[in-house]
C-alpha cells in the first residue's frame, strides 16, 4: 500500500506544480535558515573536550582594585592570572592532578630553508602538562620534559598542519625553526587537534579557529620577551620599565587550568587557593574580599559568553521564520487538500476507510517534508557558505555533520507533518456523500 500511496503522492505533487514548489521552497527556506543558524549555535556551544570537560577547571583569583564595585558574579572577576600567582601555583605542591599556565603569543617564523618566506606564527607558551591534561595527540615525539621547562630550553612542538607546511609532513624531530631569528629545536609534532571552541583561551578573536601552530615552554617564551597577544589588564601600573617589572606587577595575562579528578580533589584545591590568597593578603596583596573560582569547561564557556548574543538572537529569529514557513505551508496544504475533496469522497465511496485516506495523505505530506528537508539542507549548506564569507574565523562552525543532517530531516518531516496534520484531518473527516453529485 505504501508504494501506491507514494505513487499517488507524486502524482498529486505534480498536479499542482506551482503550489507544490511553493510549499517545498517555503519549507526548505525555513529549514535552511533555521539549520544554518542552529548549526553555528550547536557547534559554538559544543563540548570541545567531551570526555574530560567535567574535570578540567579554569582558575580565577581576584587580585583586583579594592575601589572597584563589589563582585556580584563570577563575570566581574578577571579571567586571567598574574605571572606571580601562576608561577606560585606551578611550582608548589597542590592537590591538583595536573595544572598548566599558558598564554598566546607570536613571532616571525623562518626555517632557514631556501625560498621560505617569513610569516607570523601563532605560538602558545605553556607548560608540558598542557598536552596530557588536554589529551593532545602526538604524531611524532612528545612534550618537552620538565628539565627543558626549568632549563628555559629553546624547544618547540608543531601542529600537524604546520609540520606539513614547513617540513612536508616528515618526521621533523631535531629540525630547527627560527622565531624572531632565534633557533628552536622541534621535539614533537601533534596529530590533528582542533578543540572547538578553543576553550583554554576564549578572550578575543580566534575562539573558533584552529589551535595554535607552535607550542614552546612558557619560561623560554618569557625569556625571549614573546609578549602576550591576548588581553593584558592592569589595575596598577608596573612599578618600572622592562619585562622584570611587568612580571612583578598585578597585571593579569595568563590563563590557568587545573585537572581535578574528583569532587574531593576539586574541593581541596579550592581550599588550597583560598589559603594561598589569605596568605598573600598578609603581604598586602589581594585587597578585595576573597573571591576564588574554579570552573569546569562547559560552565566556563557560559561564563565567558562564548556563544555570541547575535547568534542566539539569530537562532530565535530563524525559529520564528521557520514557524512562518510552516504556517505558510499549512495554509497552502489546506487549500490544496480542500481541492482534493471530490477525489477523497470518491475513494471513500469506493470503500477506502478513514485510515486509508489518512495514510495516503500522510505519505503525501511526508514526501513534501522530505523534499522540503532536502531543499532545506541545500539552503543550509548555502547559508553556511554565506556565514563563512560574512564572518571571520568561523570556518570550523560551518560544516554539517551527520547529527545535523539527521536533525534537518527530522525537523523537516516533523514540520511538514505538523503543517499537514490539520488539513489531512479535515479531509479525513469529510462525509463521502457530499462531493459526488455534479458541482
Amino acid at each position: 500500500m505504501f508504494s501506491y500511496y507514494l505513487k499517488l503522492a507524486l502524482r498529486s505533487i505534480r498536479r499542482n506544480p506551482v503550489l507544490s514548489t511553493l510549499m517545498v521552497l517555503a519549507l526548505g527556506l525555513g529549514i535552511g535558515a533555521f539549520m544554518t543558524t542552529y548549526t553555528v549555535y550547536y557547534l559554538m556551544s559544543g563540548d570541545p573536550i567531551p570526555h574530560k570537560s567535567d574535570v578540567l577547571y579554569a582558575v580565577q583569583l581576584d587580585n583586583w582594585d579594592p575601589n572597584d564595585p563589589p563582585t556580584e558574579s563570577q563575570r566581574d572577576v578577571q579571567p586571567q592570572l598574574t605571572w606571580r600567582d601562576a608561577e606560585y601555583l606551578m611550582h608548589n605542591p597542590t592537590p591538583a592532578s595536573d595544572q598548566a599556565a599558558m598564554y598566546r603569543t607570536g613571532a616571525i617564523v623562518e626555517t632557514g630553508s631556501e625560498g621560505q618566506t617569513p610569516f607570523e606564527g601563532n605560538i602558545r607558551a605553556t607548560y608540558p602538562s598542557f598536552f596530557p591534561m588536554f589529551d593532545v595527540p602526538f604524531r611524532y615525539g612528545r612534550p618537552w620534559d620538565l628539565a627543558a621547562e626549568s632549563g628555559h630550553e629553546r624547544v618547540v612542538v608543531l601542529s600537524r598542519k604546520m609540520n606539513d607546511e614547513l617540513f612536508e609532513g616528515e618526521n621533523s624531530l631535531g629540525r630547527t625553526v627560527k622565531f624572531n631569528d632565534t633557533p628552536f629545536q622541534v621535539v614533537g609534532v601533534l596529530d590533528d587537534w582542533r578543540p572547538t571552541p578553543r576553550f583554554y583561551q576564549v578572550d578575543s578573536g580566534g575562539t573558533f579557529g584552529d589551535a595554535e601552530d607552535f607550542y614552546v615552554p612558557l619560561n623560554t617564551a618569557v625569556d625571549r620577551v614573546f609578549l602576550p597577544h591576548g588581553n593584558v589588564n592592569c589595575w596598577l601600573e608596573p612599578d618600572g620599565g622592562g619585562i622584570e617589572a611587568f612580571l612583578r606587577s598585578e597585571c593579569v595575562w595568563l590563563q590557568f587550568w587545573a585537572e581535578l579528578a574528583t569532587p574531593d580533589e576539586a574541593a581541596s584545591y579550592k581550599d588550597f587557593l583560598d589559603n594561598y590568597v589569605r596568605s598573600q593578603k598578609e603581604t598586602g596583596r589581594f585587597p578585595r574580599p576573597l573571591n576564588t573560582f574554579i570552573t569546569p569547561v562547559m560552565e566556563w564557556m557560559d561564563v565567558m559568553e562564548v556563544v555570541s548574543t547575535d547568534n542566539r538572537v539569530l537562532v530565535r529569529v530563524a525559529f520564528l521564520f521557520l514557524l512562518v514557513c510552516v504556517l505558510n505551508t499549512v495554509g497552502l496544504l489546506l487549500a490544496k487538500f480542500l481541492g482534493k475533496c471530490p477525489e477523497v469522497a470518491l475513494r471513500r465511496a469506493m470503500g477506502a476507510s478513514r485510515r486509508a485516506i489518512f495514510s495516503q495523505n500522510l505519505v503525501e505530506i511526508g514526501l513534501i517534508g522530505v523534499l522540503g528537508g532536502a531543499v532545506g539542507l541545500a539552503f543550509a549548506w548555502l547559508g553556511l557558505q554565506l556565514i563563512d564569507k560574512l564572518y571571520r574565523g568561523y570556518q570550523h562552525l560551518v560544516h554539517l555533520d551527520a547529527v545535523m543532517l539527521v536533525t534537518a530531516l527530522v525537523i523537516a518531516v516533523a514540520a511538514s507533518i505538523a503543517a499537514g496534520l490539520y488539513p489531512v484531518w479535515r479531509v479525513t473527516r469529510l462525509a463521502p456523500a457530499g462531493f459526488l453529485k455534479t458541482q
Partner: protein
Amino acid sequence: MLKMTDVSKVYRTELIETHALRNLNLEVSEGEFVAVTGPSGSGKTTFLNIAGLLEKPTGGSYELDGEDVGRLSDDAAARIRNEKVGFIFQSFNLIPDLNLYDNVDVPLRYRRWSGKQRRKAIENALELVGLASRANYLPSQLSGGQQQRVAIARALAGQPRFLLADEPTGNLDSLMARQVMDMLEAINGEGTTIVMVTHDQELARRAQRNIQVLDGQVSDLDTLYQARVDRLAREDSAHV
C-alpha cells in the same frame, strides 16, 4: 438483497429540521433492476446515499444481503461499500490525472488483493466495456460515453453484488445513453442487482420495476400493499 424498513433521514441544523426521508420501506430482490424516480427534492439522493452506505439513516433498519448495515461503524461501512456495492455517478467522477487502468484500480486497492489478481480484474472489466485497448488513456482523452463506461468498469471490477447508479446517463446524449443502458441491462442479465436513480421516465421504463419517491416516501403500490399486509400480520400475531 436490499430491504429498507421505516427508514427515515433527518438533517438538523441549528434552525431547522429537514425530513429528507420519512418511513421509507423498500425491498429489492436479488437480480432485480429497479429504477427509482421522483422530482427534484423528493429524497432520491438521500435514498441513494443511504442505500450506498454513504450516510446512515436516522431511523428504521436497512438490511443489505441479509446483513443489518444501518448502524455500522465507518470502517465496516467502508468495507461493505468496497466489497458489495458498485457506484456509477452522473458526472462519472473519474480521477482526472489517473489513466483508465489506475482509475479502475481505485476500489481494488482498498481490498487485500495481490497485484496479479487486481491486474486480471481490471483487464476483464475494461474488456467488458470495450476499452481494454485504451487502458493508458487519461479520462480527458475520452468522450462522455466512454468515460461513463470506464466508470462502469470501475464499479464492476470488484464484482459487487449490487450496483447503484445515479443518473448514469444524465450527462450523455441519447445515443450514448442508450449504449450505457444496454450495458447496464447486460450486467443485470448476468445476475447483478441494480438500483438506478433517475428523473427520466423513459429510461425508468426499461427497468423491471419502477419506484417513485415523493416527499421522502416510496409510492410504489406493490410495496405499500406489501407493507400493509406485513403490518396487519404483525398486529394479528400480537392479538394471538
